[in-house]
């Protein structure tokens, strides 16, 4: 009796894990590939029938298993070998690279300071899984995952909207064709560089610190960000870089 209960528990746990893991990987593949998937209710189309689904590994094999497709996933400090030499200054990016990164950045937010949209499918119901990648420095293959620049709030999806919505599950071509996307001429504020007192002086922060308390989330080393620091060896940002009170949104004084 006891053995059968524990066996049952293992089966349930495995089934749960399989579903969770495959769902997790599914979420990570390209949005358009995900869009081709027509998710069926579980009983009708078991996970094994979906040709692209990943076979879940046994718990025993997990430690040595090479993960796919995000086999490059890494968030441990030892395996995160820095792409830069922490002891030396790093050269700034080339102009073309800067432009490409700025365009990419602008495509993911309505204006400078808006919560970025989410470029990948998400769990529609909760935020618990967001922190697995966005909570600490994480790299998946050659993609550096953006870290939270602000303190932890429990409801990530309160502010961050998925860019491509629910994907194919809700595509309704006839209605969409009859009423195409309604154009909008909103033009958001774009980032500007910081001012500095003289050549070589540390720039003053060109943005507010609200929602940007964690400098290294955007300016940290190794990132693909256009605004990464050239001197990652220095940790105390506010020692040299002054906040700009003129930009801070403080309550007006009476």
């Amino acid at each position: 009796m006891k053995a059968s209960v524990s066996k049952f528990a293992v089966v349930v746990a495995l089934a749960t894990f399989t579903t969770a893991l495959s769902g997790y990987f599914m979420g990570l593949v390209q949005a358009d590939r995900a869009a081709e998937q027509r998710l069926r209710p579980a009983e009708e189309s078991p996970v094994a029938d979906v040709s692209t689904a990943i076979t879940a590994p046994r718990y025993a094999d997990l430690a040595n298993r090479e993960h796919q497709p995000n086999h490059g996933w890494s968030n441990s400090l030892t395996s995160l070998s820095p792409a830069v030499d922490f002891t030396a200054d790093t050269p700034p990016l080339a102009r073309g690279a800067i432009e490409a990164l700025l365009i990419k950045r602008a495509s993911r937010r309505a204006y400078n300071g808006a919560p970025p949209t989410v470029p990948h499918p998400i769990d529609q119901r909760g935020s618990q899984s967001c922190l697995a990648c966005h909570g600490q420095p994480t790299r998946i293959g050659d993609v550096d995952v953006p870290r939270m620049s602000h303190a932890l709030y429990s409801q990530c999806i309160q502010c961050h909207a998925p860019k491509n919505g629910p994907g194919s599950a809700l595509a309704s071509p006839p209605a969409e064709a009859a009423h195409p996307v309604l154009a909008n001429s909103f033009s958001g504020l774009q980032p500007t560089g910081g001012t500095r007192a003289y050549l070589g002086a540390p720039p003053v922060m060109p943005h507010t610190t609200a929602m940007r308390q964690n400098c290294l989330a955007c300016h940290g080393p190794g990132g693909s960000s256009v605004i990464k620091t050239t001197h990652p060896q220095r940790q105390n940002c506010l020692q040299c870089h002054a906040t700009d009170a003129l930009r801070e949104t403080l309550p007006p004084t009476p």
Partner: protein
Amino acid sequence: MQRRDFLRATALAAATTVIARRLGATIPEGLPAYVAATTADVTPDGVRWDKAPCRFCGTGCHVRVGVKDGRVVAIQGDPAAEVNKGLLCMKGYHVGGILYGKDRLTTPQLRRNGKLEAITWEEAIDILARRVMKDPAGFGFYGSGQWTIPEGYAAQKFMKAGLGSNQIEPNARLCMSSAVTGYVSVYGVDEPAGCYDDLDAADVVILWGNNPAEMHPVLWSRIVDRRTRGEKVVIIDMGTRRTRSTALADHYLEFRPQTDLAIANGIAHLLLANDTWDHDFVGKHCNFRHDPTGKSLLGEAFDLDGYRAALASYTPEYVAKLSGVPAEKIRLLGELFGRRDLRITSLWCMGMNQHTRGTAINRLVHGVHLLSGHWGRPGDAPTSLTGQPSACGTAREVGTLCNALPGGLLVTNAEHRAECEELWNVPPGRINPEPGHHTVLLWEKFCTPTDKGGDIHTIFVQVTNPGQTLPDLNRTFRGKAGLADKFLVVSDVYPTATTELADLVLPAALWVEKNGVFGNSERRTQQWFKQVEPPGQARPDAWMTIALAHRLYELGHPGMRDQDDRFIFTFHDDAGREVPAWDFDHYYDINTDRALFDEYRRFTFHKHKHVAPYDELVKAHGLRWPVVEQADGTFNETRFRFMEFSDPFVKKGAGIQFYHSVTKDDRALIWFCPYEPATEEPDNDYPFWLCTGRVIEHWHSGTMTMRVPQLRGSMPNAYVEMNPADARKLGLANGDMAVLETRRGRLDLPVWIDGRATPQRGLVFVPFFDERQLINTITLGDFCPISKEPDYKKCAVRIRRRPAEELRA
């Protein structure tokens, strides 16, 4: 990076640059001179930042609006606002985008031979005025909880003091009138006693058919972020579907639709059975009440024995049988309410209000709080949330309803009428003592041919979209098509399902394109100034009403004059000169918002709803009424009403005093209301429940948010959500098209399983934001007999898979 260092650095820098900030805050060209520089700052990038409440829900977050070169370019959560403390939701962060949809309405248009053609404002106002002049009694004004307070007040005065007509309703009838009848029948006066501070103090938060994670996200994060700080808060989600809120709840009590009444009675039953009700609180502060007719607002006196007998059958087992919630979970609720060491806050919104038993369930939830003594301490509160930014401020407080006068007064009360006539300086008898048509009836009459009793010939719609949001649209709205003598006038910012049938379309200024005042869910009145120019000829709704009134004045309508023979909307500048605000060239010569608001303010004293003077609101991020002047000339807001420690109107030493008590003895009423089945329950022909509602991305009918790429990208179209087991049985998978049929019509929708939420078996959910897929063509028009609020959450529907070859109906 040390937060303390950062704060210190910021504070130091701020202190030295305050003067510079003030100098930088100039008034941009085009904005009126009275726009106080004191509310705005200019940052080095040339962006001018000013305060405004968010345009969307009833939470009432403050945003800082970044304006550059005359256009909104950025939004920030306002760190100085108590409501949201610097945080917003995805709608709030993108609220600036709503102004810039490419298809903004920019000129008045008249329908000629089926086509809308541009006309001038003068022509438009004249056409409307002549329709009203011909038969004032058949003219209806339909506004909303998105009206600013001055806009709603102007419409209210125009109708009740001017035309002597009560045919004015807000869309808020469709969303919160059951909360109003609940508060009025329990406390004798409308609106919550508590405020959002309760959410910081509660040990237990109970959601009664409420999904704040999507509907009031900032309040939700205010609750759940307490856990991040190490505080303990138990969340009990009572609902009919698993939602984002359920994901963070400790207990999920899934009940069969309509049985929330049985659960509330079950709690009261247990409090009595276990003798854990608060004898002291009830003995001092409560009377019992019941309503044998089921239709009476104030009911009849009752006593404890009668109350006990009426509740006798609501045992946990009986409630479990009705509701599907296990008896032990009912006992859990009964035990929680029986504990005085915990503070319990109940939250609800449309789940309880859009209910054919809406008034009854509101009374019962207040009742379990009163009976258990979970009332009167911060964190112990029954609190209704509102869905619109000024449903409280404009619909409830200004009283833009067919039965109400400003400040909680009633048209049926002779004293109230006399008081209002005096304040408005109009002759005695000007105000009509007969209530007008409530919303559903108003539109039914409009859609009925005149010779068949359809006594409403013209409706002027402002700031709302009834063509998408009325229930059972084919009957309540579409019926207008083909009735040649009916005339629909719509003021809006974009083409909508309502403008499709409009005869006259008026382009409106939106949000920070005009001055405004909103009133949020916690009695907080919030003011903002115009910050950008509206596009083309778009103008504020308050101006439209004043211009219409003045045209009628010119045409000789006697109601447009007061007792001194002056136009009822006469404004003066600081020098005492008359300002012709009806002439748009002079509308912004003075702050008409300030004049209208301070005029309205006088009406709020009668029921102790003292709103703050306009100039005090300019300085604040909203103030919670009653806002009472102190001996030193300053004004204090009130966080908790009827409680001596906070409310200045409570008699010293009373502790708690319900000073507008129905029974005139300073006591609140504990009601008994029985559970009764819904008016249309699932049966063999229509075996499913249909529930409708909102999603986090879209606000109401999506007119604004569907034009914001980030929000539309996140949620592009409506869907039908169903339980996986039901879907399997029907052979439906994600993305399949389902046919939904009710007794009123058919709608085809794509299926989404285990997506945003999962309904219980036997229930499907459809959001109503999508104007291409109007779910309200098939919803039910039945309403609560007391509040007249329709039930959008429950009707019977049948569902089948749409065969591939079948064309869309």
